[in-house]
């Protein structure tokens, strides 16, 4: 599988993402936001960072970069697409995923390890995950509070689209394990067609044994083990 990592001005997790994909034995290329070609990539990743300085709203302006037209087309034609952190914000602004990401309820930028539990194994991103395990993965965001209207949340539940919940280290999903005020502790979702994924936590930052945490690598391995 060939991976393409989109780079906007202000992206800062592109190197980490490329590095992890390569460590899994797959090709990864960077795709500059001004180009339109996806260079025949099978799987596009919109990485974390602060595209366009988060001006107006996080992800709002990146959505209109030249490359996004083909990224949206790729997704609408069933191609795989994943947004991590700022990438998730870009994908909700592009209406490829439902809902929005609001300012954290604490009003602070939060950078710390949290725990995640998968809500479904019925997706490429979560198929190889242990449903009972709490995965330790870092978050680093100021706007990560997932919000959508009641009807959308119900649809996400009915269609099994909630990929990750914030939990504690024992896997309990409750208010205390919710770092940012996300509705229902939602940390990651997919679209109804199950080819577009978005998550606020950074699996690519927990993917190197030197960092003493490879839980994120397990999540990303799920993609390539298909």
């Amino acid at each position, binding site marked *: 599988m060939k991976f393409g990592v989109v780079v906007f001005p202000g992206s800062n997790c592109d190197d980490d993402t490329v590095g992890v994909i390569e460590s899994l034995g797959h090709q990864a290329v960077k795709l500059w936001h001004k180009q339109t070609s996806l260079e025949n990539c099978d799987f596009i990743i919109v990485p974390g960072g602060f595209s366009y300085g988060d001006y*107006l709203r996080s992800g709002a302006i990146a959505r209109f970069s030249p490359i996004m037209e083909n990224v949206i087309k790729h997704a609408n034609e069933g191609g795989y697409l994943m947004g991590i952190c700022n990438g998730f914000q870009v994908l909700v602004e592009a209406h490829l995923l439902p809902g*929005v990401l*609001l300012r954290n*309820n604490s*009003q602070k930028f939060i950078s710390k390890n949290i725990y995640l539990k998968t809500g479904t194994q019925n997706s490429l991103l979560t198929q190889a995950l242990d449903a009972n395990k709490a995965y330790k993965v870092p978050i680093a965001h100021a706007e990560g509070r997932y*919000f959508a209207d009641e009807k959308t949340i119900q649809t996400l539940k009915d269609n099994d689209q909630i990929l990750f919940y914030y939990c504690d280290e024992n896997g309990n999903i409750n208010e205390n394990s919710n770092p940012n005020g996300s509705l229902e502790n939602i940390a990651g979702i997919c679209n109804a067609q199950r080819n577009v994924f978005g998550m606020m936590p950074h699996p690519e930052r927990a993917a190197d044994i030197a960092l003493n945490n490879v839980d994120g690598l397990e999540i990303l391995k799920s993609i390539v083990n298909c």
Partner: protein
Amino acid sequence: MKFLAEINVMPQKEILDPQGKAVKIGLQNLGINQVSDARIGKHIQLQLEAGSEAEANQIVTDACKKLLANIIMEEFEFKLIQL
């Protein structure tokens, strides 16, 4: 015709606005206790050319819906001033 659009984008009423909440507490800490609520949004000014006020209205509404506001979480209102 030249118009100035004065646009206000506000978080929807039912959505928690932590920024506004922090400011309200700040005001109360200053002894300005009469303030019972604070909500923070954005004020945007656009200058534009349009054939009529109705056309200007349409252009600004389009700009708000497509980019300036995310209607899932925000609402917008604006007034047009002919320059």
